[in-house]
């Protein structure tokens, strides 16, 4: 990690730079915030329970209680408020919005992803607690959609974070999003919602892709 940081040192914020601090007793202490304040361990693969019946039950509970991170990344986020209000009422299916990444399990990437947003998306995704799922909304996440030759958006989302379900369309209506949720539930119940483990397994590949796009990388390699 230290090697990586050297390349990106010029982008570090002032409070994250290596500096010397004077302690109350007069001694000088060297502070390296990225190494001292953040845990820089790589993510681990957390295997499912070996007992199939238990794992099936746990997967059922995970599928029936999907907590979505309230983070709208593109124009698709406008489809999420109607999803929760009387007309579509996604609460019926155990879908609820959570305001913090720590408590949520589903990340809806709603539409195009600007490079600047991608950095925040990666950070939020890594802070979510596994098993976690990604639902990609709109054609922009599949091949870039109408932004495919834009200088500032990414084209394929699954090069950067593992995606569970794609909902195609520009824009998909809330019905399509609900269908996407149903598909995600099937996937989780079948035990195939292992995006977090996939991310941990192919961590180097994902990181290399992310760093290729994000030039001003100024955060730890993995945000716990």
């Amino acid at each position, binding site marked *: 990690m230290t090697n990586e940081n050297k390349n990106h040192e010029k982008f570090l914020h002032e409070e994250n730079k290596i500096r010397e601090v004077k302690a109350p007793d007069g001694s000088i202490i060297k502070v390296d915030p990225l190494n001292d304040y953040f845990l820089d361990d790589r993510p681990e693969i957390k295997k499912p329970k070996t007992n199939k019946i238990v794992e099936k039950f746990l997967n059922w*509970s995970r599928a029936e*209680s999907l907590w979505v991170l309230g983070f709208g990344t593109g124009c698709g986020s406008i489809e999420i408020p109607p999803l929760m209000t009387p007309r579509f009422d996604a*609460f*019926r299916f155990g879908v609820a919005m959570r305001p*913090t990444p720590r408590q949520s399990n589903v990340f809806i990437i709603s539409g195009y992803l600007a490079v600047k947003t991608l950095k925040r998306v990666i950070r939020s995704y890594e802070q979510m*607690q596994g*098993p976690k799922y990604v639902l990609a909304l709109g054609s922009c996440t599949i091949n870039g959609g109408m932004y495919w030759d834009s200088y500032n958006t990414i084209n394929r989302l699954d090069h950067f974070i593992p995606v569970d379900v794609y909902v195609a369309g520009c824009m998909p209506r809330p019905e399509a999003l609900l269908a996407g949720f149903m598909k995600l539930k099937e996937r989780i119940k079948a035990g195939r919602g292992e995006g*977090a483990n996939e991310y941990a397994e192919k961590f180097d590949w994902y990181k290399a892709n992310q760093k290729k796009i994000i030039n001003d990388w100024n955060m730890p390699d993995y945000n*716990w």
Partner: protein
Amino acid sequence: MSATMRKIGARVAGRYGIPFYQPWINIIKLYSLRDSITHGVMFYLGPIFRVSGGVGIFLFMPLIFASQHFSNFSFAGDLVLIMYFQFFGMLGMALGAGEGGHPHSAIGISRGLSQFTTIEVPMTLAVISIAIQYNTLSISEIVAAQQGGILHWTLFTNPFATVAAMLSLLGAFGHSPFNLVKAPNEIPIGPPTEYHSSFLGVLRTNAAILHVIEAVLFMNLFFGGAGNWFELIVKSFFIYFWSVFVGIVFPRFRIEQSVQWFLKIPLLLGVIAIIIFM
């Protein structure tokens, strides 16, 4: 009980709302998450303090009047102990959430503690008034003193204390007018911002226990207690429904509004209740 609240709220808004078993699935899911990171020792102990506060109240609360088993560990001074346990969980939670280090937690804690302190004032005044009225600090004896017909209930013998306590109950349940501390769309979710997976599962479990037991406490103190399980369920549900009803009708207060609100009418009623029985 929280599912009832959400369901009624949804029907009022014209939605179907969550299934009634959704909170249980949520709790199972929270316990079944594979990752959980910690920020230190107090971060672990916060939810444990909170749940021990809830279970502590449960252990010392007489549920059924004159029943040998369901008086639990009720003893001569249990009213004081239960009032203490109510605050104990809040303090443990504050320490734990503080160690999470998130600025939202710190703001949430300061809001939560200041609101809860003002809730406690009228509630404590009402409880002291009852203690003077019945000349005891034992919940079982207070229930015993209310037997013999509906007009013997504290509701009719000491209406000022009842009203003061029922108003502060709205704050203790934390539903709509006073749900600023933990509302998901305020500064994200307040004190438990950093809590996740099984930590949050413990907090959710405690919330479920606490709602039931607070309703039972008020039933014992003001509504004549319960002679059997059916009476217990009906009475505590209606006490809970009181806060649901108010929550659906009235929008959310800001923190300074709710603090001022508790220090006006409920406080005045509490003081009157004390003066009457001096």
